């Protein structure tokens, strides 16, 4: 299980950074846009989550996490097939 442990450290750091980004994004959204309509409620969740997810994925790819690489290749293969 040691390869798994090695991959876990950068992943945890990347997840923490993603968490900070998501929290900051949500705070910004609440301050400037609020959640008065359904569209704003959807945005308050998916915009910060999308940005944070993207950063997490990029960091994982940069750190050469095998699971990130494998999933990206899997997704790209599906995309190319279509």
């Amino acid at each position: 299980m040691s390869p798994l442990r090695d991959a876990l450290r950068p992943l945890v750091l990347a997840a923490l950074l993603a968490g900070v980004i998501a929290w900051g994004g949500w705070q910004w959204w609440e301050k400037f846009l609020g959640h008065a309509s359904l569209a704003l409620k959807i945005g308050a969740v998916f915009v910060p989550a999308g940005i944070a997810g993207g950063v997490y994925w990029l960091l994982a790819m940069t750190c050469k996490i095998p699971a990130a690489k494998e999933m990206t290749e899997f997704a790209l293969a599906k995309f190319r097939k279509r």
Partner: protein
Amino acid sequence: MLKASGAMAAATLLSRVLGLMREQAYMFFLGTTWVNDAFQYAFTVPNLFRRLLGEGALTAAFIPIFKEKEKTHGEMEMWKASNAVISGLLVSASVIVAIVLVLVSLALAFGTPHGISQSLADGGLHQTILSTDTNAAISASETVHFWTPGQFPPKIVLMLQLLRVMFPYMILVCLTAVMMGMLNARGHFFIPAMGAATLNVVMIASVYWLAPKFGVGLPKEQKLPVQIFALAYGVLAAGVAQAVFQLPTLWRDGFRYRWVSPWKNETVRRVVRQMVPGTIGVAAFQINVALVQLVALFVGTGIVSSFNGAVRLMELPQGMFGISLATFLLPTLSGLAADKNYPEFRATLRNGLASLMFLNLLASVLLVVLAEPIVRLLFEHGEKFTAGSTARVSFALVCLAPGLVAFSTANILARAFYALGDTRTPMKISLVCLTINFIAACLLMGPLREGGPGIANTFTSAINVGLLLFAEKTRQA
């Protein structure tokens, strides 16, 4: 691995999204009221069997044996073995259901306050005591001594009545679990996963179509405790729909049900031997939830429904990545263990865990950080689910979501032990964790209310993973 579990993950995602829609419908209809507390707990009990069997021990025990029969004895013996298991299951599940129904009826006869009819038909119960506006009555009744005859709080009376309606769901769910296991072992992952989607569609229909037909003519505040029975009948109908959904694919594969006596049947004995410890091993989380919610039912109003809402939200990523991968991994690891291909076994397990951690780590962080907007988006609709309800459910989610990675990892590690034919180690570890969880949840529930069970579950799951990894290391050494 990704490809095979990907199709299933897509179906599971659909089913989880529908599950979330079902939860939205329930929250819209019930809010975090005491009626919802009673319904959620009554549903937790048969639902526990679904989790234990459908996503856990029965399939975990049955698939390796089914697969082995196919390889060593051929298809004829394989179908015969499954018929024996189904026959045994029908008999034992029916006996359990009959016993529970008798016990619940006795409890109702003992504890129902005098002057309140237990009959659903006469409607007396709902018209005299059970109204959503009787908050003072509920609070007062919660202080009444529970063990005094005729002194059960209305919440408990309603919960028992709902349990009596919903418990037969267990027979259907056991049957479905075996059929899903058979389909998984035959390489079908999409159809069984879609069965759960059918289940949710029927349950949602019971909220919007069946419930308005109940309690017609009653005052608004007295309707809910009557209409809740529509949701209970919906659960039963959903169980039938899910079981029937599996049949055409099994039929095409050559399965025909015939009664095969389960008594002294070698396959049935093996499944039971493997299943009993596995039931505790795989489903520690589910047993935790049921036990803790039982305590929560007595601690205060709204704890069960708030915590349940959080659990449902966490189940979305857990079901999508964790359960799909675990369901796919079991037959794969079983096959590798049967061939004694241990290097490949370890590599597959490592690969599975890596993919799971990669996805669930992000999901866990996002659920914690964005708990409030997620709950607001999904549940805050209508009159019954207020901003206060959002605060309570999101607090429960913040406490529960950090454990997501550990919950899913424990599930996969336990299955690795099962694939190696070792069901005892995960069971022993789970028993230790169950005890810790129960004590921690009871201690934390007083000061933290719905947050207490979440923190206890997170803490216990981390211990569970640590102990399973330690046991795996010892086993390797």
